[in-house]
């Protein structure tokens, strides 16, 4: 992006665009980025974050995190909080893939134990976790069960022996967000989703076997708090969302909102910012449906975890409990939630939209699981399949500055079409194998699109948020096996 004089640096990695930048801005915009990331950011981010700043009822700032890039309406990497009485809710601030998110599971296996069996393990997980176009999950639920499943999320799984007893505690919101109402979800969404539990999807979704990477970063004291006690400990990371269910919910309510907005006299600078008052019937209906989709995604990731635990158990001939395959945490990165935050000296309930952004709650927060209250919630930020990912921890500074929000990933720098022209999937697969990463993909085209060079530098993103004090690094995680849809 060419230099923009409107963007003022306020600290080493924090930038602001004043309200005067664009007519209609209710608040300034705030960006978290190193100079390098800011220079590389597409100009669409500036356009979009300042459009978000114009939305009714927004408070404090419209935010763009270090991984920000152009999206539909909100930038990906966008965060905005709204007064619950006067503000709006916008599907563009959540995304089509409601509760696309990350789950991290530990094992007590060491790299030397897993490496010789990585092909066997990845091939088995590939068979057990359907990925790609039109896949069906290994366990179909009746449509009549969808109400309970999407209301209770991972708690429903635990009640039906589809999760370990302590799994819900290690999922954001205890495994389900309150306020779901299946009556607000269309028949099409329910039909799409009912057979998709336990499926990975495609695009940038993945399941990765990883090893702690102390050469890149490891805070041993903090890592121990999450059960990471060896420098070469093996982890599993899952990145996926609410599948066709969530996409259909977003599709349905974008249509509802387009016509409803006219009744409320709301005009937006971008039709992808379609929104209605959160307190309106349409706003509340969408929220209830969105929560169903968010809980669907928690359950989807749980079903995948069950299959992963099964695969490890079969390959290593020990049950998953003996392998200590407990959840470290599960985070949403496309969601809107009612949260209580203190800003401008007052504690208030706000609707926080995080689109391609992760919650980053600090120590002592009531929503952080008890075992982590002393240190803050885990934050899982995924990189590309070649560069690896990071585990971080939330901070009190995030609570003070960003409504407890941080980045979510590395963000694309190149379109899928351009990536396919640049690289061949089979060549990339071989190159990754040469670098010690065994990849199994449902399609070679899909693999090419996910080449590491099509993404920003994850380490730069994570370093920025760490230097900003918004999320603190705990451990870098290097991929050794990967499944892609």
């Amino acid at each position: 992006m060419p230099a923009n004089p409107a963007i003022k640096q306020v600290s080493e990695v924090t930038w602001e665009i004043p309200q005067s930048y664009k007519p209609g801005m209710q608040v300034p915009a705030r960006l978290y980025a190193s100079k390098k990331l800011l220079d590389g950011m597409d100009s669409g981010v500036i356009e979009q974050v300042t459009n978000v700043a114009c939305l009714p009822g927004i408070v404090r700032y419209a935010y763009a995190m270090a991984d920000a890039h152009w999206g539909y309406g909100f930038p990906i990497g966008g965060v905005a909080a709204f007064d619950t009485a006067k503000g709006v809710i916008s599907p563009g601030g959540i995304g089509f893939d409601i509760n696309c998110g990350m789950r991290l599971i530990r094992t007590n296996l060491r790299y030397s134990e897993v490496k010789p069996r990585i092909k066997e393990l990845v091939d088995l997980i590939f068979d057990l976790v359907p990925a790609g176009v039109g896949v069906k999950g290994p366990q179909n639920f009746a449509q009549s069960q969808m109400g309970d499943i999407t209301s209770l999320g991972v708690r429903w799984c635990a009640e039906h022996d589809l999760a370990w007893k302590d799994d819900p505690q290690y999922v954001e919101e205890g495994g389900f967000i309150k306020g779901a109402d299946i009556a607000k979800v269309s028949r099409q969404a329910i039909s799409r989703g009912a057979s998709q539990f336990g499926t990975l999807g495609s695009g940038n979704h993945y399941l990765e076997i990883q090893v702690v990477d102390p050469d890149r970063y490891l805070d041993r004291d903090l890592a121990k708090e999450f059960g990471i006690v060896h420098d070469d400990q093996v982890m599993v990371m899952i990145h996926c969302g609410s599948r066709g269910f969530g996409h259909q919910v977003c599709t349905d309510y974008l249509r509802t909102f387009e016509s409803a907005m006219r009744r409320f006299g709301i005009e937006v600078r971008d039709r992808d910012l379609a929104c209605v008052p959160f307190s309106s019937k349409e706003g509340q209906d969408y929220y209830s449906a969105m929560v169903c989709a968010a809980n669907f995604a928690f359950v989807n990731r749980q079903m995948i975890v069950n299959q992963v635990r099964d695969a490890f158990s079969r390959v290593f001939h020990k049950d998953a409990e003996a392998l200590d395959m407990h959840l470290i945490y599960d985070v949403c990165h496309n969601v809107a939630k009612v949260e209580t935050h203190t800003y401008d000296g007052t504690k208030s309930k706000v609707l926080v939209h995080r689109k391609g952004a992760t919650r980053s709650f600090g120590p002592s927060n009531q929503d952080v699981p008890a075992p982590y209250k002393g240190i803050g919630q885990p934050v899982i930020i995924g990189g590309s399949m070649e560069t690896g990912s990071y585990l971080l921890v939330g901070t009190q500074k995030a609570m003070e500055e960003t409504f407890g929000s941080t980045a979510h990933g590395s963000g694309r720098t190149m379109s899928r079409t351009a990536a396919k022209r640049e690289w061949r999937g089979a060549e990339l697969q071989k190159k990754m194998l040469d670098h010690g990463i065994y990849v199994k993909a449902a399609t070679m085209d899909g693999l090419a699109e996910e080449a590491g060079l099509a993404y920003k530098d994850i380490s730069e993103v994570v370093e920025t948020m760490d230097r900003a004090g918004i999320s603190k690094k705990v451990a870098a995680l290097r991929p050794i096996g990967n499944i892609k849809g």
Partner: protein
Amino acid sequence: MPFRFLPDVALADVAFEAESDSLDGLFETCALAVSDIMVDPKTLRTTSERSLSIRSESLDRLLYDFMTELIVIKDVDSLIFGEFEVRVSPEGTSLEAVAKGEEIDRERHRLRNDVKAVTLHLFGVKHEGQTWKTTVVLDI
């Protein structure tokens, strides 16, 4: 090819533009583009047939709803189509279509990306001279 992909639009998703000298042709072309993103058409047979009847409030919405319906059928019934015959009503608010394809076969089909939704970004049906045109961005 009556549709072409747009590599510089929507980094994380897929965008195409389509054109035809008839409205029916535009709808058929868009449907073919949606399928092409999901499967190599050379590997697809047309052994099954599905009739579609759709009503919407406007021409734009009709095209949007038609493509959305193909995505829903892919997820619910695991069907992908490779041939389409579409008849759009003169008012542009309804259509009848016959879609021919088959159930997804992971062994035989060269599958590509999973299309999950039609976005509203840049979307709209235009009539320029003798040509009907549209730009579509799909969430994958």
